[in-house]
């Protein structure tokens, strides 16, 4: 309230359009963006912020101010896709670890499916199956949808008009990516030594490729 008054006297009000007030001073806009981002349950784009600010505000500039204000702090303003969110500074992640309760591993099928969606989006179920070489169970897709890591994209304009899957902003957020394009390509993976196809020591399940394992047990059943 007091700031509203300040704005009225502190800055020259735009008298051009009657009934419109001048935008609040930038320091106040910054406060507003700070509060909105803090309270929001999801990252917000500059456009979404602008919608919620009084007319005449410059969300982008306020974001820039806020970003530098929080730079080096315990919490940072980060960009997530086209949106912005407050996040714990990466170097303090360990402070949050004590709270990590009941973590579960994602199934290999789910990880692979997720990876394929991320690298090939928009991608149809048939394409995922082609790349994986095995059928993708409904449960796997459902789990990823439930985790809000993938979502339905536009239907493919081919016979049958199959649905496609794309990754979500939540996915980018979780994996610390600004966009899916930031995922390293095959060449970079190779350079990083990730293309070595030998199983990682102590990596269970690597020799339990679904197809192979099934075949084996069938063949040598006691």
């Amino acid at each position, binding site marked *: 309230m007091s700031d509203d008054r300040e704005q009225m006297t502190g800055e020259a009000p735009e008298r051009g359009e009657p009934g419109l007030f001048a935008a609040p001073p930038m320091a106040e806009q910054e406060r507003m963006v700070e509060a909105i981002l803090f309270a929001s349950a999801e990252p917000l784009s500059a456009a979404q912020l602008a919608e919620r600010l009084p007319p005449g505000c410059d969300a982008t500039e306020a974001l820039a101010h806020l970003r530098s204000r929080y730079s080096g702090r315990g919490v940072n303003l980060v960009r997530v896709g086209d949106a912005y969110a407050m996040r714990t500074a990466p170097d303090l992640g360990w402070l949050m670890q004590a709270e990590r*309760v009941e973590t*579960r591993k994602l199934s290999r099928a789910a990880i692979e499916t997720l990876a394929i969606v*991320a690298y090939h989006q928009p991608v149809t179920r048939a394409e995922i199956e082609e790349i994986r070489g095995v059928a993708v169970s409904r449960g796997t897709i459902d789990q990823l949808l439930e985790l809000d890591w993938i979502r339905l994209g536009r239907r493919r304009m081919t016979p049958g008009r199959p649905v496609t899957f794309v990754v979500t902003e939540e996915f980018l957020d979780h994996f610390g990516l600004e966009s899916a394009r930031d*995922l390293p390509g095959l060449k970079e993976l190779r350079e990083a030594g990730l293309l070595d*196809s030998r199983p990682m020591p102590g990596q269970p399940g690597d020799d339990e490729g679904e197809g192979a394992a099934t075949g084996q047990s069938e063949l*040598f059943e006691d």
Partner: protein
Amino acid sequence: MTDDWESRDDISARRAAEALIVDVDGYEGPLDLLLTLSRAQKVDLRRISVLQLAEQYLGFVEQARALRIELAADYLVMAAWLAYLKSRLLLPPEPGEEGPSGEELAAHLAWQLERLQAMREAAARLMGRDQKGRDFFARGQPEALAISRKTRFEVALIDLMRAYARLRTRDEFRPFAFDRSDIYPYEAALERLSTLVPGASDWTALQAYLPEGWRGAAKRKRSVIASTFAASLELAKQGSIELRQTESFAPLQLRRRQGRADE
């Protein structure tokens, strides 16, 4: 008050009086009704005339009776008590009488009303405060905290990239890579069996030739039986061992080829 109502022909006043009675359900008990009635005196609750209030209340109860409205028992209990209070206030105390004076009782009632009023105002002030979720907000996206409500799926970017790398390179590497730790290769079985055969002069079950460490886990066992069996076939073909089986599904037995040692 009662007289007022009856003497006046004013329809609106009459209606208001009836509304008061009919709305008896709207009151939260006798104390609430007394508090409402006391407002008519338009004075500080500390200076309220309890006698006047008692008369108002008794008038109200009488009116309700006249209109054949059934009042809850607690309204009647309060009416009886107020009638008693009224008599105590009006009559001088008898000498040597026990118990509290009318003034003490009246003061207590006034204090009860004041306390109820105070609590109502406090409640209103409380609800008028800034409230969380309405006027101020907590973090909308709290990060993983001690709340054990959710199962977090632990997947790092590296897992994703590894999975993808595995998928994309499976085709070009698979035919050549021997990446299974639970497979006992045929070549190894052949080499092992070849070195053991010279000592096998008696019929011995094939299982006896399985290497240590491969006889337990079913998966490993299957693999080693298969490769050792294949190796035995090869050695039989070469003529260095003999194989026999007493009946279908009986254990396979082998021994060094007898003739050869004699030659």
